Structure formats: structure tokens, C-alpha cells
């Protein structure tokens, strides 16, 4: 399928399959009890759709869904709704990320309908990083919603068929609802409790921020299981290959919400080929995470190391021979 190959026909979306809330392939894989893989796409600083397809290419063969980030780290890139729409129409399954930092409730509810109309069926509700860490710190932070009120709003749109104003929606957006969690960041004791609130607000799957500290994550998961949350929500811990010890240190002190243990940085420092070591560590992390009860998949965020994603997933063996492919290739 070429990038300009759009038909003029109005797409027809049948109701979601029995027991599902959406058409999402990710939802199907998770409900079938398979170990799901999602991967984050590095959004282009360009208006060229072929840049999006090029970035998606190395992820598509191993990922059940590709995450389109919404100006993560408050840095401006192509919008998540644009990327999600392009990729969805090319047969990829996408996770449309919405951050509360840049848009108010009027814009967000409209965007959700727009995305659903273009076939997008997964959404990840995020609070968003503060504007100060980004490339335009003088911007006005919006934060009209937080991630939980956003979740509950989209669930109301989907299940009650109305906007938050009570006005009716003639065709509700059928979206599989996701939220983030950050288990390795303080206040550690309250992270599982807040996860419970996210489930209460409407979250059906969770993608976490980077997990580099397995003991800390295990402690989090133990509490999650005590609260019975692993039965109510699909949890996909976040992983990613480190590029070098220097990059890891920079990330730890400059990107909000990332915890990398010193031991891991030491290991990177001693490695002869840091790139290969980062990949090896990532594979080990995936294999360890997979053994933890209550984990439903893994979310790979390989910023600027997208070329490693497919090898990491294949070498980790988590797909068990499964081949997530885009729809157009299956025909």
C-alpha cells in the first residue's frame, strides 16, 4: 500500500466483537491471554507522511500496536492524532496518546471523536510533563483535565454516548481505554492505590514508564495483586534499551519520572560496546518482567534506537512465534 492510496469510500465500522469494547487488535490479543507487545514511535519533525511510515516500519513486524506520543517531554513534534490516523489507515494498530497539558476539555472531546472516525481504537490518557522541560518553556500549560478525569470522560462518551455537557453523541467512539503508571517513582506506597483509581476511572490497559528496577517493580506488582487489580486491567510494563552510561545519567536527571539504578549505569559504563550491552539488558529485563504474575505484555520505548526493537522482541522470545502484522500485509 502506497502512502497516497486512500479511497473516497466512507469506512464502515461494525460493532465491536462480543465481550470487547473496541475493534482494537491490542484488545483482542490481550483478552485472548496472549503476551502483547506495544512499541513507541519516534514522531517526526516533518509534515511528510512517508517519515511516519518509515518510523513505523521497524516496529510494525513485532508490535501489536504502535504508540503515537503527544508531544512527550513537552517537545513539539507531529501530533499524535495525525500519526494515529495515518498509521491506522495504512493497516497498523495504534495507541493514540492524549496529554492534558496542551488541550482543554472542548478540544480533547472533539479530537476523540475525530480519531475514532478515522478508525483509531486505542487511546492512552496521560497527564503530561510540565512545559518547563520542553523546547518551548514559555508555553501556557492547560491541564484542564487530569489523566483520571480524561479517562472517565472518554468512558462516558463511549458507554453513555454523551459529552461531559450531557449533549448526546449519535455515534459513540469505540475506544479501548489505556492509562500510564510509574511504579518506580515516589511516592512508591501510593502508586498501586492510584492505579486502583485509574481502573475505577475507566482504564482497561496500563502502559508504564521505564522499568529498570525489577525488585521495586516486583514490590509494586505484589501490592497490585493484593488489590486484585491484575484481574481488572492489563498491565504492560515499559522497557527500553539504554544507549550509554552518559545517556542514562542524562535521562535520569533531565526527563521527569525516570529511575535508573546505579548498578545498571555501572554495568553500562564497564561495557565495551554500550549499544549492544543496552540491548542485552533490555532483553533480560523483558524476560524477568514476563515471569512476574499479573503482567500482560510489554511496552517498548526505544527512543532513537528503534532499529533495535524488532531484534529485542524476537530475541526475548515473548512472541512465541506469533507474528503481529499489519492488516494490509495479511491480504
Amino acid at each position, binding site marked *: 500500500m502506497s502512502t497516497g492510496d486512500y479511497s473516497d469510500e466512507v469506512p464502515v465500522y461494525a460493532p465491536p466483537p462480543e465481550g470487547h469494547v473496541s475493534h482494537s487488535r491490542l484488545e483482542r490479543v490481550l483478552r485472548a491471554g496472549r503476551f502483547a507487545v506495544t512499541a513507541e514511535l519516534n514522531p517526526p519533525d516533518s509534515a511528510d507522511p512517508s517519515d511516519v511510515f518509515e518510523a513505523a516500519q521497524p516496529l510494525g513486524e513485532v508490535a501489536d500496536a504502535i504508540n503515537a506520543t503527544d508531544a512527550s517531554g513537552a517537545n513539539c513534534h507531529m501530533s499524535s492524532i495525525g500519526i494515529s490516523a495515518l498509521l491506522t489507515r495504512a493497516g497498523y494498530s495504534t495507541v493514540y496518546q492524549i496529554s492534558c497539558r496542551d488541550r482543554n476539555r472542548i478540544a480533547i472531546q472533539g479530537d476523540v471523536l475525530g480519531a475514532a472516525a478515522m478508525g483509531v481504537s486505542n487511546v492512552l490518557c496521560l497527564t503530561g510533563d510540565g512545559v518547563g522541560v520542553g523546547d518551548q518553556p514559555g508555553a501556557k500549560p492547560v491541564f484542564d483535565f487530569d489523566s483520571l478525569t480524561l479517562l472517565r470522560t472518554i468512558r462516558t462518551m463511549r458507554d453513555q454516548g454523551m459529552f461531559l455537557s450531557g449533549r448526546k453523541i449519535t455515534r459513540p467512539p469505540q475506544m479501548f481505554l489505556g492509562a500510564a503508571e510509574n511504579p518506580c517513582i515516589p511516592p512508591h506506597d501510593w502508586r498501586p492505590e492510584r492505579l486502583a483509581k485509574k481502573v*475505577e476511572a475507566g482504564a482497561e490497559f496500563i502502559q508504564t514508564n521505564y522499568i529498570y528496577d525489577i525488585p521495586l517493580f516486583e514490590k509494586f506488582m505484589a501490592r497490585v495483586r493484593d488489590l486484585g487489580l491484575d484481574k481488572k486491567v492489563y498491565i504492560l510494563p515499559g522497557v527500553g534499551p539504554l544507549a550509554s552510561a552518559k545517556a542514562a545519567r542524562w535521562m535520569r536527571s533531565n526527563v521527569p519520572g525516570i529511575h535508573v539504578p546505579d548498578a545498571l549505569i555501572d554495568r553500562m559504563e564497564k561495557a565495551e560496546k554500550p549499544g549492544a550491552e543496552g540491548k542485552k539488558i533490555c532483553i533480560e529485563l523483558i524476560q524477568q518482567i514476563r515471569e512476574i504474575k499479573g503482567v500482560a505484555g510489554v511496552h517498548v520505548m526505544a527512543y532513537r534506537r528503534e532499529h533495535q526493537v524488532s531484534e529485542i522482541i524476537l530475541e526475548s522470545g515473548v512472541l512465541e512465534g506469533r507474528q503481529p502484522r499489519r492488516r494490509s500485509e495479511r491480504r
Partner: protein
Amino acid sequence: MYRIRLFAIRHSGVFEWIYQRVEGVMVALDPVFAKIGYNRVERPIALLEQGVKSVLFDCKMCGQCALSSTGMSCPMNCPKELRNGPCGGVRPGNYCEVKPWMKCVWAAAWDGSTRMKGGQKIREVLPPVDRSLKGSSSWLRVSREKAAKLREAREAARTAVAEAFPEARAIEPAVAPLAEEPASAVNREVLKK
């Protein structure tokens, strides 16, 4: 004020108790407020509320106070104004992502909730803030809401009797009344027994 705010969170149990008394007084004053007119008392009460709460909690007068459900830590002090925090950017030592010199408002909230009788309330998902209520009195809003709830409960009881005896009500309306009773028509002595 930052220090007083932290003090209030450390003593959230005491402030919770005080808050409940204030609320009780406000609800009891509903007939008075209704008589003077809620519209007329709005400004003076809002000013009083702002004076007290900005000293104690760094209150931002959002008009939709949820202190009793947020460990007595005002969520509007969160730079992201989260109503259901904390976010994923909290720094080591529970410091704020956006204002690194400040303790995370929501880490403090969860901590404060552990010292409160109604601490479990923090587990409820709070709705987004209605920005059009900014600057108005939350106390009067609670007073109106609670008084309305009490009226509704009384009305429901009357309706039940009227519905159970429709024939009697048709011939003798006073035996199963539906209309709102004025305060002086209710015999308080009987209610006390």
C-alpha cells in the same frame, strides 16, 4: 504560607474535625442564608472563606473544595492542578516535578489522608474542576447542597405516604400532604422525642 500548609497536612485529623464542625454550622444556617438570600451573602462569606483558607491551606478559591478528600492538602497548589494525583514526575524525596523546591502536593495528600477518619475518601475519582465557579464560596455551596438533600429526603417521605393513601389524599389533602412545610409548621418538640 507553605509551612502552615504543611502543618495543616501534618495535623489533617484535627483540621478534618474542625472542618466538619464548620460544615455543620453552615448547613444549620441554611434557613438564615435562604432568608437573607444566598446571592447577597455570597461575597462576604466568600471573602471570609478566602481569608481563613488561604492562610491555612494556600487556598486558591476554586469554589469546589475537596480538602476532606485530599488529606487536607489543597490540590490547586499542584502546578498541574491535578484533582487525582500524584503525576508520574515526582522527584526523589517526594519533591515536585515542576517546582523542585516544593513537596509534591499529592504525595502529601495521600500521607495526610492516613491521619483522617474519612481518609478512604481519597480513593474516589474527583471530577474535573468547573472553572466558572472560581472565586465563589465553597462553604455556601456545601450548605445549599446538604440542605437541599435534607429537603429531598423529607419530601421523599411525604411522597411515599401520599402514594400509599391516594384515595384519602384525594378527599382530605391535609392527611397526606405533598407541599413543602414551612419551618414554623413543624412541631420541634414532637421531633425531639
